[in-house]
């Protein structure tokens, strides 16, 4: 009578396991929807581990339940010790030992592909990523390009991400490409990833970094090599010569420009570089789509949309001035 619920339990466990599996693995941030060799290897390891672990879990639980239900004959104490030794050595020592050895043999090499080891004959692209509360600073040193909150990558080329932080610990993670690595003030960590196919992915900070940890998203786009070269080239030459007209221009230079950089005009380095702002997919590190309407909303309500961010409120700026700044910001692109 007691085993009725247990039997139901087994049934439901299997169902509960199956339901999420039937759901798609797809998702802009899914580790099980790999878009690069590193992530693919890990996903494959996961499916193997899942299968084996599932068998072990069902096996051990089943054994326990069977052992509880069976009607044993009486055995002498010596035989009891023998039976116990069989179970303990077989199940408690051999089973985990074999599993661990196999797992280490097949599993650990996957990690090597994410290490920045020398690659003969292949040119590795170097991208520097710096975490800030709560946005991403991206530098392409080969091309002296600085941008923020967007990561554009060439398809089919290994990339070494050199990551660090300007304030607290963050973590750099683009699940569809591969594992994460922490961004730690005072240190630089390197992880090698590669996109095997063009597409848009999503990265997200994955070390708790304070109030807006949830709102630190990194839109990623992989493009083919030619497109990437063009993208870099366009930004390398990007310099602006004209601030907005009149008061708006002064205001941008004296206030916004203290923290934000616009190539050719201002040199701030405490907030996202705005030089190619208009070409970015989102505002506020993945918070809002980047269009005219949301840009204006962001300028007005950024402390409500993403409270605690470092940008001061602009309550004192007249609407018309802010509108002029917004209109000018919309022109900042190659």
């Amino acid at each position, binding site marked *: 009578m007691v085993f009725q619920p247990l039997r139901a339990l087994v049934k439901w466990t299997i169902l509960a396991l199956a339901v999420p599996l039937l759901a798609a693995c797809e998702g802009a941030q899914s580790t099980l929807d790999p878009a690069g060799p590193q992530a693919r290897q890990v996903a494959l390891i996961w499916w193997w581990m899942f299968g084996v*672990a599932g068998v072990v879990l069902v096996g051990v639980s089943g054994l326990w339940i069977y052992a509880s239900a069976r009607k044993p004959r009486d055995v002498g104490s010596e035989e009891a010790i023998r039976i116990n030794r069989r179970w303990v050595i077989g199940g408690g020592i051999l089973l985990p030992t074999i599993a661990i050895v196999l797992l280490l043999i097949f599993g650990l090499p996957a990690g090597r592909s994410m290490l920045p080891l020398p690659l003969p004959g292949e040119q590795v692209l170097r991208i520097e990523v710096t975490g800030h509360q709560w946005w991403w600073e991206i530098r392409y040193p080969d091309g002296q390009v600085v941008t923020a909150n967007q990561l554009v990558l060439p398809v089919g080329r290994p990339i070494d991400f050199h990551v660090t932080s300007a304030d607290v610990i963050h973590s750099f993670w683009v699940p569809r490409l591969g594992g*994460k690595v922490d961004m730690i003030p005072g240190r630089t960590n390197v992880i090698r990833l590669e996109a095997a196919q063009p597409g848009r992915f999503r990265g997200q900070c994955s*070390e708790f970094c304070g109030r807006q940890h949830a709102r630190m998203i990194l839109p990623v786009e992989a493009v083919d090599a030619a497109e990437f070269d063009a993208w870099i080239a366009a930004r390398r030459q990007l310099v602006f010569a004209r601030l907005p007209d009149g008061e708006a221009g002064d205001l941008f230079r004296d206030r916004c420009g203290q923290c934000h950089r616009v190539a050719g005009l201002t040199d701030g380095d405490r907030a996202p570089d705005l030089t190619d702002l208009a070409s970015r997919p989102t505002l506020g590190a993945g918070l809002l789509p980047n269009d005219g309407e949301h840009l204006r909303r962001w300028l007005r309500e950024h402390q409500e949309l993403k409270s605690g961010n470092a940008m001061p409120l602009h309550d004192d700026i007249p609407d018309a001035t802010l509108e002029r700044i917004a209109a000018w910001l919309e022109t900042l692109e190659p």
Partner: protein
Amino acid sequence: MTQPSTDPDQLHDQFNEVWGNPRGWRALTIVNHTSIGLRFLITGGAFFLIGGLLAMLIRTQLALPGYELMEPDAYNQAFTMHGTVMMFLFAVPMMEGLAVYLIPKMLGARDLVFPRLSALGYYCYLFGGIILVSSLLLDLAPKAGWFMYTPLSSAGHMPGMNNDFWLLGITFVEISAVSAGVELVVSILRTRTNGMALHQMPLYAWYILVMAMMIVVGFPPLILGSILLELERAGGLPFFDVARGGDPILWQHLFWLFGHPEVYIIFLPGAGIVSTLIPVFCQRPIIGYRWIVLGVLTIGFLSFGLWVHHMFTVGIPQLAQSFFSGASMLVAIPTGVQIFAWLATLWLGRPVFHVPMLWLVGFLIVFVAGGLTGVMVALVPFDWQVHDTHFVVAHMHYVLVGGMFFPLMAGLYYWLPHFSGRMPSVRLGRWGFWLVFAGFNITFLVMHWTGLIGMPRRVYTYDTGLGWDIPNLISSIGSFIMAIGVATILLDIVLHFRFGLPATKNPWNADTLEWATSLPPSAYNFVSLPDVSDRHPLWKDPDLPDSIARGEHRLTTIDHGRRETWGTDPLTGKVREIIHLPGNSWLPFIASVLLAGLCLSLLTKFYLVALGFTVLTLIVLLRWSWENGAHPAAAPDAKTQPGEPPLHSRTLDGPGLWGMGVTLIANSSLFLSLLFGWFYLWTVAPHWQVPASTDLDGSLLLASAVVLSLGTLWMRLLVARLRRGSHEGLFGGLSLAALLSLAQWALLLWVLLGAGLKPRETTHDAVIFVMLMYALIHCGLATVLTVLQVLRVRIGYVGAKAPYEPVVVEQLWYYNLAVLWAIYLVLVPFPSTWGGA
């Protein structure tokens, strides 16, 4: 002396006279382990409900994408406090409380060996917990995560009092954890009833012994870390600040040096409950006792070598990662050994499915699942993907809820008749189990998936369109089912006090001695202490409860008015002495109130007040130590019955010696963590700075160490003479030792004052400052204790007839000697050979 009675009622009255608990406000003076254990359990249950409420808030917020029940900082407070409350205020104290309640009874003792320490531990836990939880009501709760990673938790990024609540409150609570740890170790080793050899004690005692040892060694790194971080936040000493030569990763090492053993500290008592219950419900002895003991010991050792697996993403060299990866997986072996030994017992037994057995099957399924995902995340490349995602949240809840909560519930239902003398309801109990089991799995099984499809932990909200909506909603629904299950269990427990059927004697036909007490037990547990020569005393002699109550066994004299229990040999369990225990006292309560005052004044930054509280606490603690040995309040009269061994205070090897030894192990764990920090910073900190010149006087430090060496040698000679039974010249000798100690302390102070340290400017100087302060505090304490010994010799509490206390104090001298020489070596020869200034 009158002939002892054999009438159980009359015996009970006589014992109750000495052991009984006062009522009313005097109940605050109770030191008895049964009362203290129950208080721990009830308080832990209350904190569990608070932690659970926070979990409900978290799951409500995450039920829907973009839903903001709480604003971001409130959410961050909620998840920080959920983890903190569940770990520090529920899991550890609950398991310690159960052990405090059970261990003496299982070992056939009348109380734990340091009853006043039990009470102090409880009050520190209660007050620390209240201080910590009150921060929620003040909207000042910690919000940097229960792991408090720097620099996020530093004053620069989180200036408010929030994180100070955590650092000070948790350190306060940890006094309780460590003191219970010390007490349990000594009690298990030294107070088992006559004949209970180490290999005959109940498995539960083995588990608790290892757990308590792990607390003793595992908590101090976090205590050190918390002290350093609080010094950084409040005093500007930069231990974790890269710019001044510190390293935030040092905090992570110290935290996880504690944090990983912590997982097993929680799991082992749970497994101990499993090992206790399975044989009872199978009605046959556990098979593979030795295998299990071996497994438990192995886990205890291994768990200290795994902490880095929480840090695979911080950029540790790959070789080290592979090592920690393999070591982490190895834990599967001793765990597997236990699981299959339990299986073998079930295999050969005829299990009865009472409610506790349901929880045990639930435990197995949930815990094995958690163990399997644990092996997965021990694999470095996989961990790089799922670290800090909901996959790990799921894994860790499977391990902790499976490994701790499920066995705890099994144990609760099993021992409920012991606590109350009544049986719980089978029907409600079943409902409670199935609701919790179903709710738990609905919540957390799907959460693995949520993590795999990319959802990080500790996010207060998430966007729709990522595939996370449905799994999160399922988890939230499951969590509410689980909450209903917990409410059902609570209802069952409350109702059973009113409607439960009275428990019969030994209702489960168990084999261990705790069921030989009356139900519920009296404060003294046993009128007479039986000899035990078997692992299953109650199966061997089912009449034991009655014969114990009739006073047919030993140590039944009570008209001397002392609380007594056996002091036995740690290995063989043969009686060596009679341990006389202190009675009810206000001192623990007063000391903990003063400590609470200290905690609050540090929190509010009234440092002068804090100093006042420190001095007062010290006075109360010294007063406490005064009432020992031959003091009139302890055991002025050393006479024992013919044929009985002497009182422990008249020997050279009482429990206090062991207590001091185990405390010094804890202390050395803290000091070694500090040395680890020093070497770590020298070798790994990214911007380590050594000041160009230093005024630290190496030869003065050497002189201090030499004086301490002479003093220790002198102390050793005095104690050796005392061991030979002579106290000739003891007064003068101890006075000289105290003077040497004082001189050495003064030299050390001179070193500190003359060193011209700038501890706010470089981590280098800050660490030296802490090291010297550490030595000063310990050498100062040795001086004070030696002076007290001088006084006690004068009054006559210490001498050839009562030679015990100088032996205890001598241990502190040895410890200080090792500390001071270590400090000399790492501060003077090491930097110059390493290539520093």
